[in-house]
């Protein structure tokens, strides 16, 4: 029997506020010693009262709007009860039946087709404490609690089960991360835990509307892990169903080392949250004016920006997608396009050239040095890159330009200074190149004989020799032409 895979994702995003969700403890806990950003509120001491962080509400509305959600006029917080020592209060303040964002959508690109994925809800809650599991010397196991993370604003984005493959799930996650980063509401880093994903996955027999019991998969700490875990789970469920065995609804954890998911004894996690309206927090009434105001301040989002880049700069869909995948990269691109330096190139060439350099050599340097575009920009600003691009058209060849860019990144010097100091500008004197070509022909009998015997490849070796002798300053096309003329003219 053929099965279809059905996936819905729940994403938790830590918001980039200065203080926690319900108290004024700092959120900069990542490198801090345990229990150093903790106060009576996040410690849940008796008699304390939570107060809602306005900025967290604003960030959540921004995200909900970017995901085309309806923002209700009335919203409130609720208590979600569960006994686990990562919660100081014994309950988590979350939102149950009146979330901040409702019924939205997000478009993804799947198999070169745009596909719309429903967003069920976007709500605001608080992060929980971190637990470390230990075993003492006499074999007793115990846990250690660090409350620093507890109370950090956490936004949950619940997607509809509209995804049909691990690849679609990956696309959806990347798009979502790109959006929250554009909005600058989160660092959205999966490895660091500021962007987390749980997946509901099930299969259904083709032509059926009924899914078999689903699994909720947890513990996936990278995009790759999500993709691999879903691939594994889709395969596992098909195998179980095909063998005529029964699937059970359960929570399964992804184990990176073995590349498998394992059952997490779902009975221990009986979902009996006994939600109740949070009596300590009055409801939030959100006026249409406020929603309109927030909407008017939203930045241009990745999808819109990509479409504009294609239309305005005549870039390919592929290049435009890559250039707009981060807001900083897109800003750098447009800043470079506006520099005086780049205006020395014909208008029709500018965007394509900048795109090529950013996605090519600049990206290679960023990957090699493990820096992002913001860091790259501190070494090589848009006007410096513009200057280099113009140089690569006039005074130096492409290979040299790449080396110059690397030196610019390392030293912070300008392209023209490096080129002048190191004497790198292309030899425009035809006589000087001519002399080198003659010398190389005279001293490489074998390669010359090979070429004349019909081995066309040999010319590359000879070009290489001339380039070496001129320290890369000759124009390789000119050299090739000169060599051909001389060899064939003899």
């Amino acid at each position, binding site marked *: 029997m053929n099965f279809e895979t059905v996936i819905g994702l729940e994403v938790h995003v830590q918001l980039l*506020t*200065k*203080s926690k969700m319900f108290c*004024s*403890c*700092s*959120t*900069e806990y990542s490198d801090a*010693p*345990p*229990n*150093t*950003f*903790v*106060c*009576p509120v996040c*410690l849940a001491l008796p008699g304390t009262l939570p*107060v*809602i*962080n*306005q*900025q*967290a*509400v604003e960030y959540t509305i921004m995200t909900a709007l970017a995901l085309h959600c309806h923002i209700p006029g009335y919203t*409130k917080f609720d208590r979600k*009860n569960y*006994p*686990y*020592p990562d919660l100081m209060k014994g309950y988590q303040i979350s939102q149950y039946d009146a979330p901040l964002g409702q019924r939205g959508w997000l478009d993804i690109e799947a198999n070169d087709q745009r596909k719309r994925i429903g967003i069920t809800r976007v709500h605001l809650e608080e992060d929980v404490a971190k*637990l*470390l*599991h230990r075993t003492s010397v006499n074999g*007793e*196991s*115990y*846990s*250690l*609690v*660090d*409350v620093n993370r507890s109370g950090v604003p956490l936004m949950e984005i619940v997607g509809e089960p509209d995804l049909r493959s691990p690849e679609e799930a990956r696309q959806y996650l990347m798009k979502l991360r790109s959006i929250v980063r554009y909005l600058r509401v989160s660092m959205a880093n999966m490895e660091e835990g500021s962007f987390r994903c749980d997946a509901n996955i099930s299969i259904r027999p083709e032509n059926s509307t009924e899914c078999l019991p689903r699994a909720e998969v947890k*513990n996936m700490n990278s995009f790759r892990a999500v993709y691999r875990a879903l691939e594994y789970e889709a395969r596992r469920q098909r195998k179980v169903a095909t063998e005529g065995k029964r699937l059970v609804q359960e929570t399964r*954890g992804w*184990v990176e080392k073995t590349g498998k998911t394992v059952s*997490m*004894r779902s009975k*221990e996690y009986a979902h*009996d949250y*006994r939600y109740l*309206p949070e*009596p300590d*927090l*009055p*409801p*939030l*009434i959100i006026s249409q004016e406020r929603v309109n105001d927030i909407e008017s301040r939203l930045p241009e989002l990745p999808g819109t920006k990509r479409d504009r880049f294609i239309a305005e700069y005549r870039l390919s869909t592929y290049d435009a997608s890559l250039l707009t995948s981060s807001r900083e990269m897109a800003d750098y691109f447009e800043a470079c396009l506006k520099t005086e330096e780049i205006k020395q190139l014909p208008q029709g060439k500018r965007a394509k050239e900048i795109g090529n350099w950013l996605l090519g050599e600049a990206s290679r340097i960023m990957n090699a040095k493990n820096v992002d575009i913001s860091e790259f920009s501190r070494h090589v600003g848009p006007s410096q890159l513009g200057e280099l691009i113009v140089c690569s058209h006039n005074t130096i060849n492409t290979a040299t330009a790449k080396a110059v860019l690397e030196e610019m990144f390392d030293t912070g010097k300008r392209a023209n200074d490096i080129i002048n100091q190191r004497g790198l500008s292309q030899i425009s004197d035809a006589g000087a190149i001519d002399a080198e070509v003659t010398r190389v022909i005279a001293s490489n009998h074998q390669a010359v004989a090979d070429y004349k015997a019909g081995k066309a490849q040999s010319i590359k070796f000879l070009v290489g020799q001339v380039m070496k002798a001129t320290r890369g300053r000759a124009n390789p096309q000119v050299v090739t032409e000169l060599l051909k003329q001389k060899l064939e003219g003899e």
Partner: protein
Amino acid sequence: MEVSRQEVLHIARLARLGLTKTEVTKLSGELSIILKNFELLQQVETTNIPPTAQSIALQNVTRSDQASASLTPNEVLANAPRKEGGFFRVRAVLDNT
């Protein structure tokens, strides 16, 4: 509606309460009476009354996003029955990984 012994035990488990047999019997009776009272309340005509989640007439109580000093680690751990290296130490939590 009667609250069964089984339901009492389930609720007690969720609240991490250990109950004796006598307590279960007692609570089963008491919780049943509380529920009956709510059943009585349900007879009140509420068609035109909007549901409320709050009994105080406040709304939009928020604070601006400013961080301020937290407690010192010593203060945080002052009342902890067990601590270790700046952490609270608790009984083993089921490790699922």
